[in-house]
C-alpha cells in the first residue's frame, strides 16, 4: 500500500493520453449554430409564425427530455444540446402554416419515442427529428402539406397557399415549374435565396451551404456522406429525371429543391445514426440519394429525403458490420 503511494508519480493512466477539446455538447451547439442562417432566412421569409413554430418545437423537445430524465431519476443531459438540435431541426422541417399543436406532438415523438425510450443520445436507431416529422406527415397529411408563399419579412399578414416546386414538378412537370418562376436562371436564383414555398428552414440554399461550410471548416462533418448523397441523387436526376429519353434530366433542379440540402448536410450526417466507417458512409450517402430520387420520381410523395434517410438509418448497423476496419495485427496470412 505504502509502496503504491510512493510510486504514484510514475503511474501512467491508460490511453488515450491526448484528449481533444471536442465534447458532445460543443458539437451539438456548433451544429445548431450552423443552422442559424437557415433559421434566420426562414424567419425572414415566413414571418413571426415560423419563429414561433421553431421556438415551440425547441422548447417542447428540451422540456420532454428534462421531464423524462426527472421522472426516470436519470442524470440530466439537456445541456448537451442534442434535444435543442432535434427541436431546431424538426422546426426547420415544418411548414410555417401548421397549427401550434403540430410541433408539440412532433417534438414529443422525436425526443421521447425515438431517443429517450431507446436509451438516450447515442442509442437511437433513427434520426429523432426525422421520425417526428414522418409521424406528423403520416398523421396529419393535409396540415403538413399546406405550403404558403414567403410573405417577405413580416410585411404581409395573410399568406397565400401554393405548391412547392417539387409539388409542381410532380403534378405538372418541369416546363410548368420553370414557367412559374420565369425561366431556369430565375428559378435557380430563387432556390438559392430561398424565396419559395417549402418548410421553414429548407428553402434557402445559400444559408444552408454557409452553415455546411462552417461545419466542414470545423471538421464536424466529412465530405463522405453529403457528397455521395448529392452525387448519387444528381446522377439519378440526370439519367432518369428527364421526360422520355434517358440522360436529359436537370440535376440542379432536384438538388436545390425540397429538403435535399438540409437532409444531406445536417440530417444524414448525424453521428449516431450514420455509419462510422468512411467507406460505409459513402455507401450510406449513395443509398440516401438513390432512395430520395426513387421516391421523388416514382413514388407517391413529391419529396423523399426524409424516408430515404430513415430507411438508410436502419441499414446503418449492417453497413458498419460490412465495412468493419481491420484491427491492426489480426490480418490473416495470404494463402500462398
Amino acid at each position: 500500500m505504502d509502496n503504491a503511494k510512493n510510486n504514484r508519480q510514475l503511474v501512467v493512466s491508460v490511453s488515450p493520453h491526448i484528449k481533444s477539446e471536442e465534447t458532445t455538447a460543443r458539437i451539438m451547439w456548433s451544429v445548431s449554430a450552423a443552422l442559424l442562417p437557415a433559421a434566420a432566412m426562414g424567419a425572414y421569409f415566413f414571418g413571426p409564425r415560423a419563429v414561433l413554430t421553431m421556438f415551440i418545437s425547441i422548447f417542447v423537445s428540451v422540456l420532454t427530455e428534462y421531464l423524462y430524465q426527472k421522472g426516470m431519476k436519470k442524470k440530466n443531459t439537456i445541456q448537451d444540446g442534442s434535444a435543442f438540435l432535434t427541436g431546431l431541426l424538426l422546426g426547420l422541417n415544418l411548414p410555417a402554416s401548421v397549427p401550434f399543436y403540430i410541433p408539440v406532438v412532433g417534438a414529443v415523438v422525436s425526443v421521447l419515442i425515438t431517443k429517450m425510450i431507446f436509451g438516450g443520445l447515442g442509442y437511437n436507431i433513427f434520426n429523432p427529428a426525422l421520425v417526428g416529422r414522418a409521424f406528423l406527415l403520416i398523421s396529419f397529411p393535409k396540415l403538413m402539406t399546406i405550403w404558403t408563399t414567403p410573405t417577405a419579412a413580416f410585411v404581409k399578414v395573410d399568406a397565400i397557399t401554393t405548391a412547392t416546386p417539387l409539388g409542381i414538378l410532380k403534378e405538372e412537370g418541369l416546363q410548368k415549374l420553370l414557367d412559374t418562376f420565369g425561366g431556369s436562371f430565375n428559378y435557380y436564383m430563387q432556390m438559392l435565396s430561398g424565396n419559395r414555398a417549402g418548410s421553414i428552414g429548407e428553402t434557402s440554399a445559400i444559408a444552408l451551404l454557409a452553415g455546411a461550410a462552417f461545419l466542414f471548416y470545423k471538421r464536424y462533418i466529412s465530405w463522405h456522406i453529403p457528397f455521395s448523397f448529392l452525387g448519387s441523387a444528381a446522377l439519378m436526376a440526370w439519367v432518369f429525371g428527364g421526360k422520355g429519353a434517358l440522360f436529359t434530366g436537370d440535376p440542379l433542379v432536384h438538388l436545390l429543391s425540397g429538403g435535399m440540402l438540409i437532409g444531406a448536410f445536417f440530417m444524414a450526417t448525424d453521428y449516431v445514426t450514420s455509419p462510422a466507417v468512411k467507406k460505409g458512409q459513402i455507401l450510406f450517402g449513395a443509398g440516401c440519394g438513390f432512395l430520395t430520387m426513387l421516391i421523388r420520381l416514382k413514388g407517391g410523395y413529391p419529396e423523399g429525403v426524409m424516408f430515404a434517410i430513415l430507411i438508410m438509418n436502419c441499414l446503418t448497423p449492417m453497413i458498419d458490420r460490412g465495412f468493419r476496419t481491420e484491427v491492426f495485427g489480426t490480418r490473416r496470412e495470404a494463402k500462398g
Partner: protein
Amino acid sequence: MAAHQGSNWDLIKNGIIAENTIFKLAISLCPAIAVTNNLRNGFLMGVAVLFVQTMVNITISLLKNFIHPKIRIPIFMLVISGWVTITDMSMAAFAPDAYKQMGLYIQLIVAFASILARAEVFASKNKFMPSMFDGIGMGLGFLFALVVISFFRELLGKGTLWGIPIVDAKPLLIMILPAGGFFAVGILMAAFNWIDARYLRKRAQ
C-alpha cells in the same frame, strides 16, 4: 412440462398475465398489428382465437394417447386446421361484414405459434380439465391484449369506439396504419410489463 399441478384458476391467470401471448411471449404479433385498427375486429379476432385455442387443447388432450410421438406435429396441425376451418366458415356465415375485412387473418390462425405451442407443451401432456382451462386462459390473454390494443388504436386513430364517435378532435391518423400498430404494441407491452413488475414487487414485500 410435466403434468400440471395447481388449480384451474391459476391456469387462467397464467394465460392472461404471466404468459400473455402478446405482451409477455411476444408471439402471434402479426394479427395484433393487422386487425387491431378497430375495436370490433380486434374483439372478434380475439374471440376466434379463444375458441380455436380451447377446442384444440381439448381435442389434443383427448387424443394424446392415440397420437404416435413421431408424427405428433402433423397431427396437431390437422386438428388445428380443422377447428380453424370451422371458425372460418361460421364467421363467414354469421358475421359476413367483419369476415370480409379479416377473413385472411382468421385462416392464418392455423399458423399461430401460440396455438401449436400450447398443444405441444401443455395439452399433449395433461388431462382434459387442465387443458381446457389452459386453452381458455391463453385465449383470454390474447383476447385481452387485442382488445386493449384496438381500443387505443381506434380511439386515437379515428376518435371512435366500435364505430361510435367518442372524441371530436383531430385524430392521429398514423395509429390506424400499420406503423402506428407497432407504436401501440410496443408502448402497451412496456406498460403491461411495468405494471406487472410493480405488482410482483409489492407482493414480494
